[in-house]
């Protein structure tokens, strides 16, 4: 892990930066600096206290005031209790990245305050009800429970909090009231009235805090109501899969992938999608392969542990040249790991999982818009090349939400490569491209074979060793073809930059914001949306780069290893994190500052 002469920035279990090979006592924690129309609100409490409802309400309300909104959540693997937090960023410019900043913070109990201790700064305003001990700085005591009871019951505490935030920031009252009405539409008039009463009570309290100068924060709405979509990676994947023609889903529930599976179950009847909960991931993956064989466009969703069980089936898809789409939403492992946290630790599993060699495609979207695109793309690629396609996301990307201008549904249904077969059809016929026409049983006169053994062109078991070589060559030629058509990585920054940050998947927006905020020259970001096979032409662009900086969320730098293996990249600097939380913008900035210092010293 530790290389001499290279800088390894690691983030320790307390979420603080720990920098190897460097001395000095600089403040490495994130700083909090409220700006007039760019705020960070953090809400922390037990599971089941209604924090999610506050985030939903405020997201809608802030968007109507013209703000961009980003929301992200970190939570424990339990249904009730524990300490969870939600982060709400609002900005005049698009915001789509995890931050360590904390301008206005609500803690629902002492436990929550303790949970957030590393994310409360001298300039953070912390509000809570009668808390003692852990939050002394800038603590403002608000009788939330009493106010809720007066409004109709303690269950309304979250509405009181939403109101206070709105009151402090001086949002327009009618906006949040409308949002509350629509949020509770379908409920009884009494429930709606109680919630409105609670929000109004909160607004009054918030306005008083602002008037008295205790919370000198204000909101400067940047413009008209924003008309963007606001959605999570889970929601984007769900709709991307539907757009990609997904009509069969079989999965076993596993965080953080279950959201897509349950969303497709919710919409399945309306869209003609078969959705089945398999008895295990082995069954799920084998069902998906059977469904594709019969002409469906099938998906399974899982996380690392479930994917591990699917790897035999992955190999089956490989040898049988059957399309397959897998959403692999990563969480920290080994084994059960941290079930509700985030990591980019399963790249190697996705890359090497399955016995034998066979072509596969690994996609790694960086934000909800790219998630939508790649959920569609996965079905297209699987169908085109008759290979398994794995879409790598993670808990952070699946559960956080941001604004997207639009998600365009293509004007036509996705084309399929399925052909009507003739009587002499051969499932594994050798062709110039190495891709055999894909027939499905019942469509045409031909018989459609499927064989897990090494086989001949007819799809029957073959122990002809020359045939074996031809089939190996057929499959490896498909990988070459896929590589020739691979998606190039995005280059963000000066074309001739000598310093290059390389990242993949969910760190895209964090890297982008971190670099944009540093005023550095001669640095660019290369973000890979397709991590395998690599786009070979891109290698030529790397000749002018003198310093490679790896940024990824796992302990060993797995993608760094892949690029070393394929492109011979020697990493001068590696910024890695694996404590279960995503990188914050500030952590990346701190790491980059250190790297710049080191580069200057030389």
């Amino acid at each position, binding site marked *: 892990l530790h290389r001499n002469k290279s800088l390894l920035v690691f983030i320790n279990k307390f979420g603080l930066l720990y920098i190897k090979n460097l001395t000095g006592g600089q403040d490495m924690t994130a700083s909090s600096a409220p700006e007039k129309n760019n705020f960070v609100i953090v809400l922390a409490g037990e599971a089941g206290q209604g924090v999610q409802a506050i985030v939903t309400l405020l*997201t809608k309300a802030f*968007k*109507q005031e013209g703000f961009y909104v980003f929301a992200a959540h970190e939570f424990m693997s339990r249904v009730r209790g524990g300490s969870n937090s939600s982060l709400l960023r609002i900005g005049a410019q698009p915001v789509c990245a995890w931050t360590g900043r904390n301008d206005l913070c609500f803690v629902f109990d002492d436990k929550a305050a303790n949970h957030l201790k590393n994310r409360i700064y001298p300039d953070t305003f912390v509000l809570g009800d009668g808390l003692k001990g852990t939050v002394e700085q800038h603590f403002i005591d608000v009788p939330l429970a009493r106010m809720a009871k007066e409004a109709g019951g303690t269950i309304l505490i979250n509405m009181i909090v939403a109101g206070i935030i709105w009151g402090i920031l001086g949002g327009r009252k009618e906006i949040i009231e409308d949002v509350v009405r629509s949020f509770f539409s379908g409920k009884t008039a009494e429930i709606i009235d109680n919630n409105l009463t609670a929000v109004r009570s909160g607004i009054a309290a918030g306005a008083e805090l602002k008037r008295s100068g205790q919370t000198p924060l204000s909101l400067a709405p940047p413009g008209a109501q*924003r008309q963007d*979509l*606001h*959605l999570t990676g889970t*929601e984007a994947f769900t*709709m991307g899969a*539907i*757009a990609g*023609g997904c*009509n*069969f889903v079989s999965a076993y529930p596993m965080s953080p992938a279950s959201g897509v599976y349950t969303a497709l179950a919710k*919409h*399945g*009847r*309306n*869209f003609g999608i*078969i959705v*089945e909960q*398999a*008895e*295990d991931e*082995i*069954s*799920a993956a*084998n*069902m*998906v*392969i*059977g*469904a594709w*064989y*019969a*002409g*469906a466009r099938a998906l399974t969703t899982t996380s690392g542990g479930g994917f591990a069980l699917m790897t*035999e*089936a992955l190999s089956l898809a490989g040898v*049988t040249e059957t399309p397959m789409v897998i959403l692999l939403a990563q969480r920290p492992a080994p084994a059960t790991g941290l079930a509700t946290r985030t990591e980019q630790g399963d790249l190697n599993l996705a890359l090497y999982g399955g016995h034998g060699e066979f072509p596969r495609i690994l996609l790694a979207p960086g934000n909800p818009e790219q998630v939508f695109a790649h959920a569609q793309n996965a079905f297209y690629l699987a169908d085109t090349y008759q290979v398994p396609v794995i879409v790598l996301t993670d808990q952070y990307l699946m559960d956080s939400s941001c604004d997207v201008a639009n998600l365009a*549904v*293509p*004007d036509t*249904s*996705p084309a399929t490569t399925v052909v009507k077969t003739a009587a002499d059809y051969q499932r594994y016929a050798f062709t110039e491209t190495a891709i055999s026409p894909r027939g*499905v*049983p*019942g*469509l*045409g006169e*031909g*018989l459609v*074979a*499927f*064989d*897990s*053994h090494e086989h001949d062109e007819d*799809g*029957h*078991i073959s122990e002809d060793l020359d045939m074996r070589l031809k089939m190996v060559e057929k499959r490896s030629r498909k990988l070459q073809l896929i590589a020739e058509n691979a998606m190039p990585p995005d280059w963000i920054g000066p074309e001739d930059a000598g310093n290059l940050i390389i990242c993949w998947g969910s760190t895209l927006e964090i890297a982008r914001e971190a670099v944009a905020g540093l005023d550095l020259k001669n640095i660019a970001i290369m973000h890979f949306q397709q991590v395998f096979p690599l786009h070979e032409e891109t290698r030529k662009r790397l000749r002018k780069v003198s310093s490679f900086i790896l940024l990824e969320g796992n302990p060993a730098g797995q993608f760094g290893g892949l690029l070393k293996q394929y492109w011979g990249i020697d990493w001068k600097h590696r910024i890695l994190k694996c404590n279960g939380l995503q990188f914050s913008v500030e952590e990346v900035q701190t790491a980059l500052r250190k790297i710049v210092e080191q580069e200057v010293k030389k």
Partner: protein
Amino acid sequence: MNQTCFDSKDTDISWCPGCGNFSILKAIKQTLVELELSPNKVVMVSGIGQAAKLPHYISTNFFNGLHGRALPPATAIKAANPNLTVVVTSGDGDMYGEGGNHFIHTIRRNPDITSLIHNNMVYGLTKGQSSPTSLKGFQTPDHLQGVTNEPLNPLALAISLNASFVARCFAGDIPQTSAIIKKAIQHKGYSIVDIFQPCVTFNQVNTFRWFKENTYYLESDHDTKNRVAAFQRALETDRLPLGIFFEEAGRPTFEENTGVYKNGLTPLYEHKVEREKLRALIEQYRT
């Protein structure tokens, strides 16, 4: 039997001479002919094992997948195109050992497919190890002092889970085997047919003669709609009954329960994306 449209050409069959699988293959072909099915509308599905090679020896579509994993793809194939006749043909190790969990859950789903389990109470392809259905005391290379585990009773298990069609037959009686397979394929729902099959190489105990002497057909007045009676008969071990133990018509199938085929059996490959509905769904995220 004469030539049929289900005969494969130039096939080098890897079963031992005298293997019970030949009889099962013959019975299957005979049944498919009687049912007047076209080879291109039939999918034979299997896992791994000697029995699981059968799909290579019959002229239909086929899916020869992973060991133990025949049932999930078979369920999915039928769900993706309900116009196909899907028949799973595999051994006792594949279906009751490696694939035991799928056997249980396929019964719960009740897809309109048929499972033919070639039950020779021994592992053939891996050369003679014991199977989940090996009888106690049966000596094998991995149980030198004889099998001590309780043999799995697939019929009792299936009936206890309320499988909608449960039968057993003996490969030595091709006409009866074919008749039972025919009813199994015709049954709408998941049909399980356990087929006793002598292994001439690795099982010198449960031979053709042993099965002849230790089996008998259920009486013609056996009430196949009485689940408790069926369960009782399935528990008999002195002499093993053959025939249809239990059947229940009219139960909704997995494919029907998906809700996708309410307006006709259009295969999924002909389905189009509901683009206007999707656009409307996306718009719900605009605030």
